[in-house]
């Protein structure tokens, strides 16, 4: 059985789905991801579906479930890289993937996770903001 790799980048877990999702693979992914979130204490999950040509109701439900699981474990889920054809198909099928955040690409997804974290805990980013300001301020 194929397994989907889960990569840790900083405070984010990156899941890039490169294979056709079967029921088994999907269930395995849910389990693995839940374990990794708990083990690493990450607060963001990015699921990259750029390589998926087909997203049916099953994969849609899997994405919703993963988002719910992550939410319970205090991690923000962002689905990134959906293809136009896939988006059109989902809309025609009437599946709107409620409760899932989306972004155009991994980079935007990371920004979105960072923004969501910043909203929740403003203290984490205070230091970074101050160093930015120190560089740019140059008043006479």
């Amino acid at each position, binding site marked *: 059985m194929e397994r989907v790799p889960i990569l840790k980048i900083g405070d984010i877990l990156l899941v890039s789905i490169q294979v056709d999702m079967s029921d088994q693979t999907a269930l395995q992914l849910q389990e693995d991801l839940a374990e990794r979130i708990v083990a690493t204490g990450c607060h963001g999950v990015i699921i990259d579906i750029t390589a998926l040509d087909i997203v049916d109701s099953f994969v849609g439900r899997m994405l919703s479930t993963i988002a719910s699981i992550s939410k319970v474990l205090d991690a923000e889920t*962002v*689905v990134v890289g*959906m*293809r*136009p054809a896939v988006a*059109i198909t989902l*809309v025609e099928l009437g599946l709107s993937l409620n409760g899932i955040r989306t*972004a*155009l690409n991994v980079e935007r997804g990371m920004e979105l996770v960072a923004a969501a974290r910043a909203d929740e805990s403003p203290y984490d980013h205070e230091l970074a903001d101050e160093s930015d300001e120190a560089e740019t301020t140059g008043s006479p």
Partner: protein
Amino acid sequence: MALTAEESGRLAALLSEHVDQVTQRWVETVAASLRGRLSQVELRTQLQELHRAIVATAENGVVDLDAEHAAELRAVLAELSRGRARQGFSATETAISVFALKDVLLELLESHGGESTLRDYVAFSGLIDAMGLFTFESYVRTREGLIADQAEQLLELSTPVVKLWEGVVAVPLVGTLDSARAQVVMERLLQTLVDTGSPYAIIDITGVPAVDTQVAQHILKTVVAARLMGADCIISGIRPQIAQTIVALGIEFGDIATKASLADALRHVLRLTGVETTRRSRRGA
């Protein structure tokens, strides 16, 4: 329709013996029906070519327009009707260019024909009828081709996706939005979002003459699809009457941002992205 070898031989002889007379009368008759919309010189060239093709085909002993040897004649006829269709002549005017040959032939046969005049005329006129029908068919085919081309061009012309700002694209919709166009607009917008990596899209409906439930449905689908991909849509350019129609029809845009003008929509997006705009005081003011 079909001519015997003997008849086609006589036709070839008749036509080639009186070249000048035939073309002169032919051009006169056709010119009268076209009422000067085509120059005499051009018309003469066309008809001379057709005349040559008929003689060549008849000399070959071809008995049928559908035969393989008649390919050249068919090509000349098709070329003639294509030209007429493009120049905007009516179907009748195009067909008359061919049928006029009948009158000319009748005159010729009356003055020069032998004992088989009547039978010859019937046979020749059968051939000319077939030629006329062929011309008509080519004319219709050309017209259909033109219409199909135009429809396609219209579809392409009417749906540009423009970049308004870094990360902001806009789709100015102009004209009625039917299913086919909505599909094209949606595909093009989503593809542009991917290509440019823009997280914001503004759909401007200033140019849409009427918004009914179906049009609203198309717009909503586009917005939902864009959201699935991770981009936000704003609908702008809602005219007063359209706003009234939307409310009267009970169309719900939900949490989709709607703005009265494109400028408002752009300002809204810029505020969301954190871009600040200030007016610089004019020098000397």
